[in-house]
């Protein structure tokens, strides 16, 4: 079976990509490994979704519902419980997507693929937490699924590692359900979450330990206590540390784009984002394979994932209609100063595009510049936790673009 577009992943980016692709008249198949669509959204029961792209404040399940309804009303063919195991380039114009499903292993062919498989959470061994292998250690997302999909409390006394948005949201969830959040432990000297989520700590009187890390878990059968040590500016442990009594340890140490399938297929991965290198159509270095959502870059707003899904679908449409994106001289986006990453990596110079970027460290009175196009903007505060999105005009002169943040 040959489709115009196969979308891998039915979260916000994949759902948006699939309905946009169908709207463009492309024969579209959407594959998702879970029995239900929506990706991580169904378990994100807090509000704050869609503020930018819908102008409404929805919870995760409500936002997912909108996207799913849009797909259901379209001609998109949906297959759930289909776990994609490989992507192969048969030629520049034909890709084969293989997936495992309750019916067995199956394969479909497509002219274009939109890869939106999301991200995975970092686990305890990636953040250097040694000690006993006991029950009661969860990633924040696992605990969220237990509570909000299955109605099960993971524990009563919780220590949370990491002050990113997911960690803070789970701190509130536990506090709301009457559990004690003993503390949120953050390795860096500044908190990681959005301002609206940092309010949670004040609302529920939850102690935040900046420049501290959890180094060890102790317990018999179940977590009983964790060791917390202060770190210096180079993140080296200092002093003896102290113990926190708890029965649950939550790891909220960031997300990593899921790109194994893309990497195996030969796509070039950017070490700065952990996602693929893409051009302004969000096409990876594999012709006709596009990426969107958290497998492209870790987004802090669902709105951006949706936007990327739509951009990727438009790119896929261009690819399918033109038998490839017309060859052009791609302009490399260079970064200078306090820029951790910038996506897309390459611009065609023939359209306005969104640049997504993050700084490496917090900065006040930041100056954001793209000298080649005369863009110059002052931003009061820039934090690594808040992605900056910049509109870049098509006319790029001199064949180079540099993003400078000072």
């Amino acid at each position, binding site marked *: 079976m040959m489709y115009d577009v196969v979308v891998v992943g039915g979260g916000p980016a994949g759902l948006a990509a699939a309905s946009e692709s169908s709207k463009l008249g492309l024969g579209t198949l959407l594959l998702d490994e879970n029995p239900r669509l929506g990706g991580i959204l169904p378990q994100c029961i807090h509000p704050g979704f869609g503020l930018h792209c819908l102008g409404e404040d929805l919870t995760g399940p409500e936002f997912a519902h909108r996207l799913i309804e849009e797909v259901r009303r379209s001609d998109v063919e949906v297959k759930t419980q289909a776990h994609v195991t490989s992507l192969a380039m048969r030629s520049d114009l034909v890709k084969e997507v293989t997936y495992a499903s309750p019916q067995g292993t199956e394969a479909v062919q497509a002219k274009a693929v939109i890869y939106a498989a999301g991200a995975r959470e970092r686990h305890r061994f990636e953040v250097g937490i040694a000690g006993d292998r006991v029950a009661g250690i969860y990633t924040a997302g696992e605990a969220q699924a237990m509570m909000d999909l299955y109605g099960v409390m993971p524990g009563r006394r919780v220590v949370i590692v990491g002050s990113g948005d997911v960690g803070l949201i789970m701190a509130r969830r536990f506090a709301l*359900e009457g559990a004690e959040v003993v503390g949120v432990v953050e390795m860096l000297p500044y908190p990681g979450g959005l301002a609206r989520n940092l309010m949670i700590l004040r609302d529920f009187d939850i102690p935040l330990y900046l420049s501290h890390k959890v180094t060890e878990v102790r317990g018999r059968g179940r977590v009983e206590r964790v060791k917390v040590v202060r770190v210096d500016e180079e993140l080296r442990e200092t002093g003896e540390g102290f113990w926190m009594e708890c029965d649950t340890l939550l790891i909220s140490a960031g997300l990593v784009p899921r790109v194994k399938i893309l990497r195996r297929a030969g796509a070039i991965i950017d070490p700065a984002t952990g996602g693929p290198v893409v051009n302004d159509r969000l096409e990876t270095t594999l012709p006709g394979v596009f990426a969107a959502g958290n497998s492209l870059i870790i987004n802090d707003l669902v709105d951006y994932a949706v936007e990327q899904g739509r951009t990727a679908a438009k790119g896929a449409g261009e690819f399918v209609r033109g038998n490839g994106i017309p060859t052009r001289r791609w302009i490399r986006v260079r970064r200078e100063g306090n820029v951790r990453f910038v996506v897309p990596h390459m611009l065609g110079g023939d359209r306005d595009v969104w640049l997504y970027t993050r700084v490496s460290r917090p900065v006040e009175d930041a100056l954001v510049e793209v000298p080649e196009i005369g863009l110059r903007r002052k931003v009061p505060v820039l934090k690594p936790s*808040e992605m900056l999105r910049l509109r870049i005009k098509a006319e790029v002169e001199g064949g180079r673009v540099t993003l400078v943040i000072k």
Partner: protein
Amino acid sequence: MTVYKLTCVICPLSCSVEVEVEGNRVKDVRGFSCTRGKEWAVEEVLSPKRVVMTVIQVRGGKEPVVSVKTDSPIPKERIRELMSYLATLEVEAPISIGQVVVEHPLGLKTKIVATGSVEAVETRGHA
């Protein structure tokens, strides 16, 4: 006189807003860059409110719980009481998104609304 220092959460600009309060009256608001931010800061100081979300038990459903929220923010000091009440609730499947589960719980102005749907399990007839 007390000065409250807040980080505005209305948009990602994250303005640092200061609210000067004397008794129960706001004397001055500084640092905001839009009227929504100003209003938010005043309310946050005088009568903070939050939207509350949780899940409640479902009987006879394909899933064990359904997610719910208050359809408007409630006073912060009533949150704990509302959560204890919601923990005792059980609703019958099917439930569809947007359905009002409870009107005015504990005399609050808000409604408890389902934010997800849960289908009922098909019941088999007795032989």
